Structure formats: structure tokens, C-alpha cells
């Protein structure tokens, strides 16, 4: 029932699907479900949601990573259900299946790790809407994959310094971020090479930057606010959540 409602209203909201995130005095709210829930509370039940906030400190960073991994895992789940994957050459099928496995494992790892330390403050299972992706199209699937992987790389690179390493757990979180980010970078490299084989694109000038005047040879490092605004702009995230309390340094 709820799902049908969502679908119906999605159609009406096509015009602003890509702008369904709000930036309110520096607070990023993403997820189109926020407006949905607000406009549907005329059936007597209180649908005004208690919008989830990622939280503060290291927990906030873990939840941030978990939300991003949920997005990636959900995307590749759709990819493997789609027509492009079904008919893709064997090597592309294998690559996308591997990436799917890795992202599900990342997602489940974060779910387990966060539940262990903060069972009541973990990001809920998020709902996504990938209707803007054509899962029968190689260009659409790989193009979206490229953006998601490059985003993952710069998100983890930017999150590293936000982790408080004042205790052993914090140091472990930093190490974990390092263990995952290089796999995201491997994904990005492989997807980019599928799109433009044996070009410079696996580590292309379109994504790398220079530091203090050097040529381009470094990945970006992006703040959560930038990453979440970009993720919100895709329109993929239906479940609303906020990031009001993430560390900024």
C-alpha cells in the first residue's frame, strides 16, 4: 500500500526528482520520502517521521559510511536484476557480480559493527529509487557505477581525518576506512576502464586533482556535506535522513 503510494507520487514529482534534497542552514536533509511523508498524514495516522540523523563523532562517520554502502549495494542489486547484466559479456558480468558482492559485504559489515556498539542509533534500512537509471543500458549502468565508485573514494578520503583516533576503536575505524577505500578505488578504476579501455581514464584527469600546484595525480577528498548533497541530488535516496552532527574536523 505504502509502496504503491510512493510510486504514484513519484510520477508527479518527476520534475524535481533531482532536487529533492534541502540544504537548510548547512544541514543536509536527503531523501524524497520526507516530503512524501509530510503530505500523506491525512489518513488519521501520524506519518510525520522522526527523521533519522546520522549522529555525531565516530558513530556518525560509521553511519555515514553505512548509508553510502547501502546505496551502492542497492544499486548493484538492481544491476544484477537488469537486462544489461543478463546479456553482458562474461567478463563484465563477472566484474559487476564481484562489485555487487563487495558492496553487500561492506554494507553487512557496517551493519554488524554499528549494531554491536550502538544498536539504537544505527541508520535504518534505507529505501532507494533508481528509476532514473536504465538497467537495460550499458552506458546508464556503467555511467552510474562510475559516479558511485568515484564518490565512494572521495567520501572515504575525506572522512579519514574526521575519525577521532583518540582510542583504539577510533584507530581501528581509520584502518577500516583505508581497507575499504582502496577497494572502492579499484572498482572505480575497473569500471572506468570498461567504459574507455586502455585510456588514461582508470585514473583520469577528469577525476584526479593537483595539490598545491602539482599536476593531477591525487584523488579528491570530499566533506560529508558535499558528498551527501551530491547523493541527494541523484534522487536515489527515498528514506530521509539528516547529517546535522557529523564532525567537521
Amino acid at each position, binding site marked *: 500500500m505504502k509502496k504503491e503510494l510512493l510510486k504514484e507520487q513519484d510520477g508527479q514529482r518527476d520534475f524535481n526528482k533531482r532536487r529533492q534534497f534541502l540544504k537548510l542552514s548547512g544541514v543536509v536533509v536527503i531523501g524524497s520520502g520526507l516530503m512524501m511523508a509530510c503530505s500523506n498524514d491525512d489518513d488519521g495516522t501520524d506519518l510525520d517521521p522522526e527523521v533519522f540523523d546520522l549522529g555525531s563523532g565516530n558513530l556518525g562517520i560509521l553511519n555515514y559510511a553505512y548509508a553510502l554502502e547501502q546505496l551502492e549495494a542497492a544499486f548493484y542489486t538492481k544491476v544484477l536484476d537488469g537486462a544489461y547484466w543478463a546479456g553482458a559479456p562474461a567478463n563484465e558480468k563477472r*566484474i559487476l*557480480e*564481484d562489485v*555487487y*558482492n*563487495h558492496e*553487500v*559485504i561492506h554494507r*553487512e*559489515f557496517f551493519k*554488524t*559493527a554499528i549494531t*554491536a556498539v550502538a544498536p539504537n542509533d544505527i541508520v535504518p534500512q534505507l529505501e532507494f529509487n533508481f528509476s532514473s537509471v536504465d538497467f537495460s543500458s550499458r552506458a546508464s549502468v556503467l555511467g552510474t557505477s562510475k559516479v558511485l565508485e568515484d564518490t565512494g573514494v572521495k567520501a*572515504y*578520503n*575525506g572522512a*579519514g*581525518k574526521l*575519525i577521532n*583516533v583518540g582510542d583504539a576503536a577510533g*584507530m*581501528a*575505524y*581509520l*584502518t*577500516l*576506512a*583505508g*581497507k*575499504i*577505500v*582502496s*577497494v*572502492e*578505488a*579499484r*572498482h*572505480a*578504476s*575497473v569500471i572506468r*576502464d570498461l567504459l574507455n579501455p*586502455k*585510456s*588514461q581514464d*582508470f*585514473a583520469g584527469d577528469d577525476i*584526479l586533482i*593537483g*595539490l*598545491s*600546484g*602539482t*599536476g*593531477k*595525480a*591525487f*584523488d*579528491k*577528498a570530499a566533506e560529508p556535506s558535499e558528498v551527501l548533497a551530491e547523493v541527494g541530488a541523484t534522487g536515489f535516496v527515498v528514506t530521509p535522513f539528516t547529517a546535522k552532527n557529523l564532525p567537521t*574536523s
Partner: protein
Amino acid sequence: MNFIKILDMLSNKDLLSKAGSRRDSFDQFKKLGTSVALASIPFGLAATSAKTKAANSAMFGTFGTADNIDVLNFALTLEYLERSYYRQGLDALGLIPSADQTVFATISKHEDIHVEFLKAALGDKAIAEPTFDFTGKPGGLNLDPFGDYPTFLALAQGFEDTGVRAYKGQAGALANDNDLLQYALQIHSVEARHAAQVRRMRNEKGWITQSENTLPAAFAGIYGGATPESNKTQGGVDLAGKFGAFGGDNALTEAFDEPLTMDEVLAIGGVFIV
């Protein structure tokens, strides 16, 4: 050169004590800032205002730069090695097929820039470039990477995968300095992009399954170590056997890259350092 000697070279704590005071070393950095354009940003060391100077001195006093300098010199050693390797590879006539030239020119350019950046950051604390012998003679090997393309590809993969694990292993050591940590991460993921590309040119997966080593046996350490690539425990959670529906333990080990310690990396690199 064996890796103990390299270690000695890297952890020459006399560097700082000889300089007499941290203030002196700061002044050296500052001087560098005026003579090398690139040196202006990393660590904010080249800033000249009294306020910044005080802040930097305080930072040095609190955290001690000696360890960070060791780490940066360690990174610089790896980047020197990679730079030298790709330059020689690109210079070797007929080695790299034309279809693969763009990839290696791109990687080579990045390693040039990494060296340039780290040297500028370190200023006169930067160690000199070692002499490399890519036949592996210092380690008792007799390889022909610049005459045999499969060998060239194999060593390139080894250096890139090692680089990824080496930077990862130092993240904790750099955690006392947000800027340094972030720069290191920004290089780290580029090494991972390189590694995946080179692996695929050898018909390997872009990611590392278990601790599989398809390089000469002498390089098994690149995928082994105290925390081997086949590690299945993450954040204290034993994940072995938990992902049967998602590629199993093979996918699990692919999903997490693992660090190498400085000693482990130097043991690998020492094979090529005269």
C-alpha cells in the same frame, strides 16, 4: 642494500637532534618554502606569520615530526622506486606495446608528481634517491623487466599492490596530522587505481583474492604479511563463512585490502635497492 640498512636510513632520528631544536628544523622548512614553489602548502610549514609559526611549533612539540618525516621518507622511497621503474620501462624501446603506452605514461606521470610533492613537503629532510636495480640482484634474483614485457607487467603489479598496502599501513601513524593523513589517502587511492588497471592487463581481477600471488614466488610477501590479504577478521569481527550467498570468503577478502608494515614493505623493496 638490505632492508635493515634502509630502515636505518629512514629512521635517522639524528636528523632532528643534530639540528639542535625543532625550531631550527622549522626554519629549514621555511627557507625551503621560499625557494621551492611547491613547498608552500603541505603542513602549512612555509607560512611566515608569527601566529602560524607559533602554531606550527606547538604542533611539532605536541606530536613530534620525526615520525611523520620517517613516514614521508618511506613513502618517498616507494615513489622514487616506482618513478624510476616506469621511466625506464617507457624508455626501453619495444618493451611496452603501443596499445598499452597510454596506461603506463599515465601511471608514470602520477609517480613523477608524487615524488615531486613528497620532496617538496619534506624539503631538506627528503632522503636522496636510492640506486635501484630492477633485475632484483640485491635480493638474489635475476629478472629482466625491461626486456620482457610480462615481467615488466608483473613487477608493476607488485609495486602498485605494495604501494596500496604500504600507504594503508601508515594511516595510523599520520593520524596526528589531518593534512598529512588526507594527502596520504589521496595518493593511496590513486595507487589502488593503478594496481587494478595493471592487474587487469595481466588478466587478473582488479582486486586481490585471498593472498593469491601470481608474481615470482619471491614476492609472496606482497600479499602476505602479519595481516595478510586473506585476512577475514574486520574490526574484531570474524566474518569467515558469513557471505556464502555473496561470493563467500573469496569475495570477503577481495572486499577489504590489508596493510603492510613498514618493515614488510622495506623487505619487498630491498630486493631492488642497491
